[in-house]
């Protein structure tokens, strides 16, 4: 009974909805990034590393200029840089995309951990710096349910959801989108029609870097104002699961990210719920839930949804 009461208590609390949206946001950025890459036929499991690097450079920009938006810009550039390495290795040198992406995740972990102390003067995590201010919808009325729900969201949340529409239009309604899909489904045929397979693939992977970098920036300069070591904590991989669950479509990825957001918000809210009063030693058992859900999603849905046909296979020009 306590559990039901706690659950009811949680879902009638506006904070739960706010938390759902903000937990879904980084996943949505990264999932959309993964979408760009996979649509053109390059698997990018390095999202985790790109997000981490983005989070680090986001804080770096904010710390040095005092302007968090510069941090956001820097995060995008850093993400672009790491993704370019992935693109270079997997497109130009036909590298094993999974292994090279793993290397980039390690590189991001190593580099951010390595630079943390020389730059910020302490290991583990940074001080708190300026973060991107929330968008306050004061016209909703300060004490209303709606205001507590969506009245103080980070602008990142709006950007992420707007990007769903932008991505949908770009992929489904433009010439570039058609080419991306062609390259991802059948690069030989696309090449025969005069599409530059390599160029399109570079574009896809680089976009994934910018978007996942933004997702990382949200975690640091967007939400906490702080960077801590390995703060992405598997979010890049959960975003990949969201992409699979969402059947490689922007709108699907959005719903899947929201589902993971709900799981995360429920998890956090139930853990701190006074009715249940869960001892702190049991918290790890709650924290493993998002990963179990991801595992079930990946195990249960991967066969039922369909990835772009050429995703993960290098393309070599013949003749």
């Amino acid at each position, binding site marked *: 009974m306590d559990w039901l009461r706690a659950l009811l208590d949680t879902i009638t609390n506006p904070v739960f909805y706010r938390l759902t949206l903000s937990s879904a946001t980084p996943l949505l950025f990264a999932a959309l990034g993964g979408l760009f890459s996979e649509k053109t036929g390059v698997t990018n499991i390095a999202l985790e590393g790109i997000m981490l690097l983005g989070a680090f450079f986001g804080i770096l920009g904010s710390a040095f200029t005092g302007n968090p938006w510069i941090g956001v810009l820097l995060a995008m550039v850093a993400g672009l840089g790491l993704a370019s390495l992935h693109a270079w290795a997997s497109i130009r040198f036909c590298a094993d995309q999974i292994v090279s992406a793993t*290397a980039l995740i390690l590189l991001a972990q190593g580099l951010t951990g*390595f630079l943390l102390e020389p730059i910020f003067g302490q290991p583990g995590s940074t001080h708190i710096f300026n973060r991107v201010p929330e968008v306050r919808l004061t016209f909703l009325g300060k004490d209303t349910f709606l205001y507590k729900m969506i009245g103080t969201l980070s602008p990142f949340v709006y950007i992420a959801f707007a990007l769903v529409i932008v991505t949908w239009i770009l992929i489904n309604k433009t010439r570039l989108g058609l080419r991306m899909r062609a390259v991802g489904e059948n690069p030989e045929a696309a090449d025969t029609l005069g599409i530059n397979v390599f160029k399109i693939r570079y574009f896809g992977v680089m976009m994934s870097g910018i978007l996942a970098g933004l997702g990382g920036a949200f975690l640091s300069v967007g939400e906490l104002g702080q960077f801590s070591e390995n703060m992405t904590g598997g979010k890049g991989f959960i975003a990949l699961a969201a992409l699979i669950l969402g059947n490689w479509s922007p709108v699907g990825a959005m719903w899947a990210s929201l589902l993971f957001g709900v799981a995360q918000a429920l998890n956090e809210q139930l853990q701190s719920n006074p009715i249940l009063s869960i001892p702190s030693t049991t918290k790890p058992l709650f924290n493993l839930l998002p990963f179990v859900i991801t595992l079930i999603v990946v195990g249960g849905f991967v066969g039922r949804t369909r990835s772009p046909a050429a995703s993960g296979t290098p393309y070599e020009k013949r003749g």
Partner: protein
Amino acid sequence: MSKGWQRIFIPLMAVVIALAIASVIILFIAEVPGPSTGNLWNDFWNQIGVRFSFLGRAFQAMFEGAFGSQFAWMNTVIRMTPLILTGLAVGFGFRAGVFNIGAEGQMAMGALMATIVAVNIPGLPMFVAIPVCMLTGMLAGGVWAGIAGFLKAKTGAHEVISTIMLNWIASNITNWAVTAPFATGSGTPKSPEIAVGAKLPILFSIEATFLSYGIIVAVLVAFVMYIILYKTSMGYEVKAVGFNPYAAEYGGIQVSKNLIMTMAISGALAGLAGTLESMGLYYRFYGTLTSGKGFDGISIALIGQNHPLGIIFASMLISGLRTGSNQMQFIGVPKHIVTIIQSIIIFLVAAERMVRTIMGWDRKKKVKDGLAKSAS
């Protein structure tokens, strides 16, 4: 250069390039202001000199910390024990065309389960207790990896995502175990000490530091792996599936059964790595017992080109870097430099064409390598 030599040369080149890039990074972070002479040109050269001497000291510290004394050697060999096994775990997976990135979690689960058994068997004689604990650890690691193998065989879920998720789950479970039901004392979360009979005998010791028979076990396992891979039909099947699953299936090999078995064996090796850490080094389970040793297995397998002998040498290299980096940290180089070095090595071995192009070998198309080409 013949193909066989290239196989050895590419990872070696990768190591050299990685060390070179790491050197450049160290040159940049060196916080050593040179004396100012007022002359910009002289100051510039002073800076260069000071930075290079810092780099020299950094590498000297690393080398001395890893191989500079008997004590340093011992620490390196102690750390090699789990690394050989995680390297074999990942390498065996690569041979069969699966990328087991979950050695970390399998190691943790193996160590935890083996420790639970080892704590609860006081009075059991050594010749029973040690095999029982080792088998428990291997079983736990094998089952943990087997989940990912099963999912891949039945639904096609990519093993990289599922093993990463299993890593996180394992890390939370083990954290919970040593903070709540299986905790003892205060401070670092840890389990009670294991029974005397389950402790591995000591091979060699200097003062309070000791090397257990675990290293012998690890080397023996590498030898067994060599026999399996090169002298048995099972090894042939594993390699056949890794080389071309479709052809293997056509040739009558049950690919999905093979896949689950490969993952289970790979996980059992990682589980044994964790078990030996508990039985031969810490005598208990620590929350920080694995601390990246499972991930180190990836670079070890790639440097060793998935060959058991290569893996032993590669684990000595990575172990040396890890132990040496503790010493390096004292003079102001964060030990994360080792992770950076490893990532560059993995990147270059994955993109081996990059190395081939640099060396001018890439005249013909050589796409096939031993690694998994399959991606979801």
